[in-house]
């Protein structure tokens, strides 16, 4: 009791009791090989931490009542160093030069590549894929690195958050896309050598470079001066997305006259990756130039890009993987002239250039100003067809399950099992059909002339999500006196997208016509309805021509934030606030025949004013025990992506569009002893008033019914508003070093992420002006958030040999992978006439989940030194037990047959964790 009072007094009355004087610890962290200073190394004295400056220098203030200071110095390029300093008197302790040995850089690389998965976007309209790679890496926090490497490949997400809740900075500018808030990791894929300088923080604790979202932030520093001087060449072999990787990096280190240069490039490729029919063909390039002006100013220019072209894969239904005998059945490819060709090819190249200026002013002030420009293409191909049969082999009407029992069903089943040409696309056949097609198009191009020839029945279209983005941010960081740290920023972001589709390949035909085949059928009396663009009716299309839809999202965002951290010997207080204005509008480049009045030209501008506050405190109970609590409340403008009901065809806004509200709190306890570290966190977050627009392609030959309405063919859009979500859970990490060469880890992430409101749905389609459903209540409350394990556990064992090798085993357990639900099945209409509690009722309302899964991973490496050269050998093997039944996600199809009320008519689709995969890397460095 006395102890507690004493503690309280110590906290509340500065100067009481301990008469806490301050102790200054300083030193310079240097490369043991070259003797050069190491910038951005993390220096952690348990009660306080800091980062080294560009010369490797650091200063740390500590309460003076310490006798021993345990310092941990970490930089991703170097081996971690622990150092104990005994305090003799209260004064400035200068540790002089602290030398770090270059680390085996490749372990992280290996783990990163094995932890990378490619998310195939479900049925949503965006065909671009998103690589989620090492989401939060190079952190010395065991929980964070485990979440990134060990859990990442199972689609684990920290606290169940979507990626828009975490801000990623590249050399000082935020790079989350304004359109949907998500970072596109693939933009710097293959540049692992130069993006290793990162710092990640999870959760709500204050950061001096970001008023982060509730998920935290990651900052990546790729500047030439931050790269260690080296020439590094590596070759990797893997059996995941790609088979081979070559990577080379050269960094000059500081040159004369304040210059520094770093270049890097890589090539990743596979004729076929883990999944059949998926090729991978990626390059990357990087150039960074630094120039120092005197001691206080520094200018950096970085240009990087990663052109990636790859073949995609599908999520499969149970029937298909039973017929084909593999959980990795991919319907997207087929044979053309005997060669495998994938119909869904993403081609992404969105290079970014960043110019950054750093100005050290006063004693410790820093003003960082950065401007970035990003542009490029992001597209994915798909088949389109007109007056022809669905070419996709897995179209549900072609499957045995669609057929009545009988001899023909048996023959079809046998064909599916035994004949690969039945399982896959038949490109040759598509060409044959186009070769034989002949049509005369009257009033072609609206000019009255007639064009005749091979009108393609099948084409390959490319759906494009191109964009240009300009970012500006100025960041001010400065301590005032000994106790107050202030940081503040001002930023402006501009985004212009270009969303359209174009003819990629006529597949042997001579032309295609810009006609809306669905409207042509649904509105036979309105000749205009079939025109996608009234300004260019009956347009004859050749390869490269835009068609279908064409619009530009325009988004502008201005923001500003400020943050204060007030340090007392036993307690830190932090407080921050943010304000922002987001404006966006749609600009249509086509005048749709169905929506002549609201498809062409600039729409009304939507404007949102948002704010956020956060604060918290950190209790430094003693040098082993820490307690912290943080809270935040913020509002967030809806993303453009979720603001328009059917942005492809018109500028109709989701009714009642408003900002989302987010409330979050967390409590952390940290214990740090020399051989044992422990962290436990509890968090609770509520999302309110969320908006989401989901689209799916309705390709029924006969329009399917939704309630009493008949939904027309083509894209169907669901807009959900008033979505509420609740994320709560705990994170626990234990790290134990029983000896200097052995490390035992245990990590648990236990979560419950659910919907906790009943959203409202509106349903419209791209091909019909009527609103099919309005204000329908979706009974979504208490359904689980999908697509990730809600809980994940690992036990890790690591052996570090003095003879320059290491080996790690991780035994992992995942649970709580729920499938994405179809909102329209959680309605009164979907279960009407069914008795509550009956099997049919449960089948519609139940939420499917994957079985809990166990996986085992191995990482190991060895380094060799030959004079000034190093050779590193690393091997990672993921899922050693080759568990191919681990469902990592999936979704209920958004189509539902209201007539039969049978959810099995359009069965669930699943993604499976890759079986045993490896990543082998050999690198050479000097």
């Amino acid at each position: 009791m006395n102890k507690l009072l004493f503690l309280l007094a110590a906290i509340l009355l500065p100067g009481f009791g301990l008469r806490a004087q301050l102790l200054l610890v300083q030193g310079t962290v240097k490369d043991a090989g070259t003797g050069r200073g190491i910038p951005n190394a993390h220096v952690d004295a348990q009660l306080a931490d800091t980062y080294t400056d560009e010369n490797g220098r650091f200063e740390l203030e500590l309460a003076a009542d310490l006798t021993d200071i345990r310092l941990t110095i970490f930089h991703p390029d170097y081996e971690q160093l622990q150092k104990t300093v005994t305090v003799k008197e209260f004064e400035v302790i200068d540790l002089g030069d602290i030398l770090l040995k270059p680390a085996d850089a490749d372990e992280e690389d290996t783990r990163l590549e094995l932890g990378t998965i490619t998310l195939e976007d479900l049925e949503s309209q965006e065909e671009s894929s998103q690589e989620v790679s090492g989401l939060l890496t190079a952190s010395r926090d065991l929980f964070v690195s485990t979440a990134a490497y060990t859990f990442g490949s199972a689609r684990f997400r920290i606290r169940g958050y979507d990626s828009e809740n975490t801000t990623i900075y590249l050399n000082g500018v935020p790079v989350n896309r304004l359109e949907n808030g998500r970072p596109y990791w693939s933009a710097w894929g293959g540049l692992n050598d130069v993006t290793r300088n990162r710092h990640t923080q999870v959760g709500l604790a204050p950061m001096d470079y970001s008023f982060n979202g509730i998920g935290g932030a990651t900052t990546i520093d790729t500047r030439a001066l931050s790269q260690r001087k080296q020439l590094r060449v590596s070759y990797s072999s893997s059996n995941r997305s790609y088979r081979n990787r070559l990577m080379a990096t050269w960094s000059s280190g500081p040159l004369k006259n304040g210059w520094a240069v770093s270049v890097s490039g890589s090539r990743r490729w596979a004729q076929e990756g883990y999944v059949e029919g998926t090729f991978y063909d990626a390059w990357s390039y990087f150039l960074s130039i630094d120039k120092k002006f005197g001691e206080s100013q520094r200018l950096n220019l970085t240009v990087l890009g990663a052109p990636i072209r790859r073949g995609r894969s599908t999520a499969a239904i149970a029937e298909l993987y039973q017929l084909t005998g593999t959980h990795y059945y991919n319907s997207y490819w087929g044979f053309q002239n005997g060669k495998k060709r994938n119909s869904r090819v993403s081609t992404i190249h969105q290079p970014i250039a960043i110019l950054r200026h750093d100005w050290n002013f006063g004693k410790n002030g820093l003003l960082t100003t950065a401007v970035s420009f990003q542009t490029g293409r992001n597209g994915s191909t798909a088949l389109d067809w007109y007056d022809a049969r669905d070419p996709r082999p897995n179209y549900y009407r072609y499957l045995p399950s669609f057929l009545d029992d009988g001899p023909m069903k048996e023959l079809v089943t046998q064909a599916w099992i035994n004949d690969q040409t039945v399982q896959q696309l038949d490109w040759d056949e598509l060409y044959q059909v186009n070769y034989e097609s002949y049509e005369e198009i009257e009033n072609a191009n609206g000019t009255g002339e007639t064009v005749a020839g091979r009108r393609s029945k099948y084409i390959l279209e490319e759906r494009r999500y191109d964009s240009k983005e300009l970012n500006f941010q100025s960041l001010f960081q400065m301590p005032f006196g000994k106790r107050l740290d202030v940081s503040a920023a001002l930023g402006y972001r501009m985004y212009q997208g270009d969303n359209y589709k174009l003819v990629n390949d006529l597949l042997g035909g001579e032309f295609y016509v810009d006609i809306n085949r669905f409207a042509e059928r649904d509105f036979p009396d309105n000749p205009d309805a079939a025109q996608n663009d009234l300004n260019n009716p009956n347009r004859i299309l050749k390869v490269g021509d835009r068609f279908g839809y064409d619009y530009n999202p325009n988004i502008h965002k201005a923001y500003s934030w400020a943050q204060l951290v007030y340090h007392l010997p036993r307690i830190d207080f932090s407080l921050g606030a943010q304000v922002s204005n987001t404006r966006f509008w749609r600009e249509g480049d086509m005048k749709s025949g169905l929506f002549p009045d609201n498809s062409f030209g600039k729409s009304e501008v939507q404007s949102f004013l948002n704010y956020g506050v956060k604060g918290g405190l950190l209790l430094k109970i003693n040098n082993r025990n820490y307690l912290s609590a943080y809270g935040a409340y913020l509002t967030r403008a809806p993303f453009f992506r979720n603001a328009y009901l059917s942005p492809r065809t018109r500028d109709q806004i989701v009714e009642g569009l408003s900002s989302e509200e987010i409330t979050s709190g967390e409590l952390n306890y940290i214990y740090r002893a020399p051989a044992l570290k422990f962290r436990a966190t509890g968090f609770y977050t509520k999302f309110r008033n969320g908006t989401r627009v989901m689209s799916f392609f309705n390709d029924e030959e006969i329009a399917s019914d939704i309630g009493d309405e008949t939904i027309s063919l083509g894209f169907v859009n669901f807009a959900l508003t008033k979505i509420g979500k609740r994320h709560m859970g705990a994170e626990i990490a234990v790290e134990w070093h029983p000896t200097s060469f052995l490390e035992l880890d245990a990590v648990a992430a236990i979560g419950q992420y659910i919907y906790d409101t009943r959203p409202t749905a509106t349903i419209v389609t791209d091909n019909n002006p009527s609103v099919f459903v309005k204000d329908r209540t979706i009974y979504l409350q208490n359904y689980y958030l999908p697509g990730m394990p809600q809980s994940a556990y690992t036990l890790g064992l690591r052996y570090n040999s003095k003879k320059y090798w290491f080996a790690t085993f991780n035994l992992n357990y995942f649970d709580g992978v729920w499938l994405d639900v179809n909102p329209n099945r959680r309605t009164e209409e979907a279960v009407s006439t069914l008795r509550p509690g009956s099997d049919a009722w449960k089948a519609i309302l139940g939420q499917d989940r994957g079985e809990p899964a166990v996986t085992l991973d191995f990482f190991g490496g060895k380094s060799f030194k030959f004079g000034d050269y190093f050779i590193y050998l690393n091997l990672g093997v993921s899922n050693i037990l080759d568990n191919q039944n681990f469902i990592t996600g999936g979704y209920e199809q958004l189509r539902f047959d209201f007539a039969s009320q049978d959810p099995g008519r359009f069965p669930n689709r699943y993604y499976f964790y890759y079986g045993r995969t490896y990543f082998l890397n050999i690198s050479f460095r000097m």
Partner: protein
Amino acid sequence: MNISHKILLSVLAVFALAFPSCVDLQFDEPPAADVCTLDATHTIADLKAMHTLGQTELISEDIVIRGVVVADDRTGNWYRSIEIQDETAGIQLRFGITDLYNNFPIGREIWVRCNGLELSDYNGLIQLGTIEEAVLDDFICRGDGGKDIQPTVVSMADLTTDMVSTLIQLDEVQFELADAGQPFADPVNLQAINRVLEDCNSQHTVLVRTSGYSDFAGQKTPVGSGTFIGILSVYGDEFQFLVRDPEELAMDNERCGPGSGTGLTSLQEDFQTGVNNEDIDFEGWLNLAVKGTRRWQAKEFDNNVYAQATAYNSSDAENECWLITPAIDLSEPRTLNFESAQAYWNHDGLSVWISTDFDGVNFDDATWTQLSCTLAGENDPYHEWVPSGAVDLSGFSGKGYIGFRYVGDPVNGTTSYRIDNVNIQ
């Protein structure tokens, strides 16, 4: 240049050399598919002979038939089916899939491996199927296209069951007056419609059935007479034809039958062959409901049959119906006589008109001139026949049609009108 630069350059050179050939993404356009040929083991007639009506036979022998596609689903009048024929017969092939014309257009020679397929019939129409997408190439071998089959020219009287599912040509036929110039089917409600085709040289008729889903459902049937081409089908005991494409119908000659040519030189109609309480349906006569649904009906009283129109108890807001004679030759001066009567008078609803530019079908396009004559009126006793007096038609020339027009409504225009003994000399 120091050592590291040399290494860098050599590494870059290795990269540059090693990369371009890594991933092969070049795809040549495939050549046109090989033409398949098989030896037919059976004729289509042989195969059809294996079927017993009303039964389903699963074929378990290695039977191969050959045929040329004579009907496909391009215009939508066939759905999930095509018709093939050889020298002996034709048969319908059934599929579980659509857009078959992209693979099996009219004129393509194909071979069907029948082992595993079922023979069945739909109300007498023998079908072979049902072939699904996954096994398409297992059952069908595709030969050359462009082998257009010439239709068999027969007369309606000579149609036989053997000709079902083959391409047939009928010469000198026309759609019945009530079905001429009418839509082939109902594209709005997607309903199939049967239209009657009549032979100019006999009393035979045959149905022409068109799907509401066909592209030409909304197109009008030809008005004139001439050559009809279609696939013979059967429904129960009755033959019916399906049109492949209305472009194939060469039916723009003058209509045949009563009123054809220059028109009738005389006409005498006492309506005695009419059936009591049924709409008048006499050869050559048109009985049109222009407003509402009511038409002229045959009525019998005291062994006399006559034509009557009334709006009494009508469920329509308004009624207008016309009874139009066959075409009359007006190159000579003609005279019209008839009798009229009324009952329950509350309005004047009857009038008599003539048109000399009516084509016999398209009522709305014609110009009609009212004729003056004596009609039963308010002051005549109910049901008393009133002679029209001789109506002089000499002021008109060419080909003329006389129209008896009744207008009324169920509230204030319920008078019944009758006409009888129409006589033109």
